[in-house]
């Protein structure tokens, strides 16, 4: 595969290395939709990582634009307020020369009671080949995928999944992890409101597939049910360890990566937490607490941050923080995903050569 930039230079796109003794055929991306990572294999995740490397090369050029998706209609359909994910997808799609339409669903006919299925059919009739969708209800993109002839890329659904975020998290970890990109046995801690977090759920699939020693940590009310997941996955061969605990000290001890999750104010009214102050005192990520982690620990946050609650301001800007790298890598990962999905659906302008 290759991409051709406007200046005429080609960029080689990677293929996963052929298996030893194999025929040398390249692994192709076969999923028409990207709804979650549970059905994505590790070799496919590696293909995303390598394609992202190529997209970063594109982004490093003076004109960061390639014609790969010229003539492809990408509709960004967001039912929830979002800045960074929506803009990240929009920039990614435009860098690939797609025709981008933005729909903030709260202000469209959805407010008049149009059903999701009707909206999807309408968007398709208006020429969309791909829909990047965010929805407040878990599972909504699966319904959309059933009624759409093109590709659905899940930009976050309810508490369920946020696959592009998990992939950009993985890319960022692999890029910055001292000692190299192999996560086998490396301790990754996801800290905070795990219960309501689609980021945490998608990260469980990708990080355990990467072989990481995954820890989910937070107050007991915000971890409910995850011990069952850890127990169920403990039996799966080839996956990393998966531990769920409310013991922050145990979680942070010798951690290689710590990712803090956003705590939302409405969790107080539901009685899940006594107060933000108490949360910050017991579970807030401070420099002092990070002393228990490895000295070169990576600090992450999917954003937007409540500084002073789940993460201390000085932690967010610590030299070990890769929070802004997550944002930058988000564009490259999303370019890679749009490119791969379009290839699987046959929307590429040109894909041969390479």
């Amino acid at each position, binding site marked *: 595969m290759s991409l051709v930039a406007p200046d005429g230079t080609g960029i080689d796109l990677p293929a996963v290395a052929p298996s030893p003794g194999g025929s040398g055929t390249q692994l192709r991306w076969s999923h028409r939709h990207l709804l979650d990572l*549970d059905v994505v294999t590790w070799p496919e995740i590696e293909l995303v990582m390598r394609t992202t490397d190529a997209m970063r090369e594109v982004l490093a050029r003076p004109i960061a634009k390639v014609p790969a998706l010229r003539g492809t209609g990408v509709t960004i359909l967001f039912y929830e307020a979002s800045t960074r994910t929506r803009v990240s997808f929009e920039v990614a799609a435009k860098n690939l020369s797609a025709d981008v339409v933005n729909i903030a669903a709260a202000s469209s006919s959805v407010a008049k009671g149009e*059903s*999701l*299925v009707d909206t999807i059919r309408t968007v398709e009739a208006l020429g969309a080949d791909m829909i990047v969708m965010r*929805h407040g*209800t*878990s*599972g*909504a993109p*699966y*319904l959309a*995928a*059933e009624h759409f002839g093109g590709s659905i890329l899940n930009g976050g*659904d*309810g*508490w*369920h*999944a946020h696959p592009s975020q998990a992939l950009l998290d993985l890319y960022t970890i692999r890029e910055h992890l001292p000692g190299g990109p192999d996560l086998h046995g490396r301790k990754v801690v996801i800290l905070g409101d795990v219960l309501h977090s*689609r980021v945490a*759920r998608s990260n469980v699939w990708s990080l355990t597939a990467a072989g990481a020693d995954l820890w989910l940590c937070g107050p007991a009310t915000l971890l*409910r*049910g*995850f011990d*069952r*997941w850890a127990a*169920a*996955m403990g*039996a*799966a061969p080839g996956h990393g360890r998966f531990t769920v605990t409310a013991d922050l000290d145990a979680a942070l001890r010798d951690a290689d990566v710590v990712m803090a999750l956003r705590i939302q104010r409405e969790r107080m009214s539901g009685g899940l937490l006594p107060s933000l102050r108490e949360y910050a005192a017991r579970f807030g990520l401070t420099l002092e607490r990070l002393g228990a982690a490895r000295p070169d620990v990576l600090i992450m946050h999917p954003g937007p941050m409540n500084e002073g609650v789940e993460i201390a301001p000085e932690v967010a800007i610590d030299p070990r923080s890769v929070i802004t790298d997550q944002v930058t890598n988000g564009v490259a990962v999303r370019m890679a995903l749009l490119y791969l999905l379009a290839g699987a659906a046959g929307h590429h302008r040109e894909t041969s050569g390479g």
Partner: protein
Amino acid sequence: MAPEGARLGGVVADLEVSRAWLVDPAIGREGPGDIVVEDGVLRSVVWLDGAEAEGIDDRGVVVAPGLVDLHAHFREPGFEDAETVATGMAAAAHGGFTTVCAMANTSPAIDEASVLVRVREAAERSGSPVELLVYGAVSAGRKGETLAALGELSDGGAIGFSDDGAPVRSAAILRHALAYAGMLGRVIVDHPEEPILTDGAEANEGLVATILGLKGWPTAAEASAVGRDLAILTEVLADVPAARLHLTHLSTAASLELVRRAKAAGLPVTCDITPHHLALTDEWLAGARRWAWEALDEDGRARSPWADGALVAGPFDPTLRVNPPLRSALDAAALLAALVDGTADAIATDHAPHTRVDKEVEFGLAANGISGIETALGIVLAAVDAGRLPLSRAIEALTTGPGGVLHGWGWGGSRRLVEGEAADLVLFDRSTPWRVEAAGLASRGKNTPLLGRDLPGRVLLTVAGGRLAYEEPG
């Protein structure tokens, strides 16, 4: 074998069934036999033995008393696009049911006699011979604030009272309703649910809800309501010994254990479970399609469908959204045990038809309910086929079980194969399965997760009160 010259609703003039497998739970007997129906009357029942019985087993055509459903939603008045009394009765007959109790959560609710009269008139107009019994609401408008017109509804023939669709929210109203209905000789049927614990809930709390990011629906929301209801019943009985409580669609191991103990203590409480809570589990939400008993390992532990390759369909199918939610394989196993030991008196369908508009939406926004009166027998027979339930107990839980519950509420009907009585029976064939297809369902509600699946026990013929209710086409 086919009834000569009969049309739907007409008296079955002449029907002979030879060398079938008869099941009569009323006398605890099953075996090879012949029956003859003349002019709507069961003229002869002959139990075969010896050489005559040779080659007949329970895997072919079965003759059983007509099935009884304690819990169905026929949506009329108010939601006729989802179901009408006429289409509901046709669906019941296709499912082998000859007596059905319709719930009161219509619009307007059946909280005064005039609405009840409308429903009974619709049943009359339908021409169906299926017997329709109707619940009145417990509270006015089913709001749980003041009592509905209980006396008037009772005089008008209400079989009992229920706010189903929702629990009797106020414990005080439940207390008064149990006493007042007891005075009238009527039962209160409660849908046990503690709404504070189920606010916004989407799926049974557990592994599946956790992984799918659905808000958990704790089993304690049901068990705590069952505990409340039993405590109130105990106290009301001291003043009103005739007070009666029936708990419908119990779905958890904990609730059934509470009822088991209450029955052992002599409380006048009965309960039912649904076919879907017996045989389907929350892992269907993730895309598994195996029966509940197939989701347990040899040691009786629940298996993870993610670990053993059981996910064969897409996740978040809104036809699976139901209240109470589909539970774990362990809860389903507890339901089966309760059915076998008699803690569960009956299988009731909770037939809940919905329109596409209300169902073909995001999982968490979909209306609760499964259209189930036509698949109930098939699901229960799947448990029989799997060796989890004796055929005789399955039929009992669909006939004399609910019939006995209804007798306690003053119903004068019967379910037995006795010569000289009006024929009320179902014939089904266990030798060949049938495929559940939308076009083949008489109900307007096509909202079943079983579409496309083969079920055992094809219903050939349903006779209600001596009249033809359903006959397999062709």
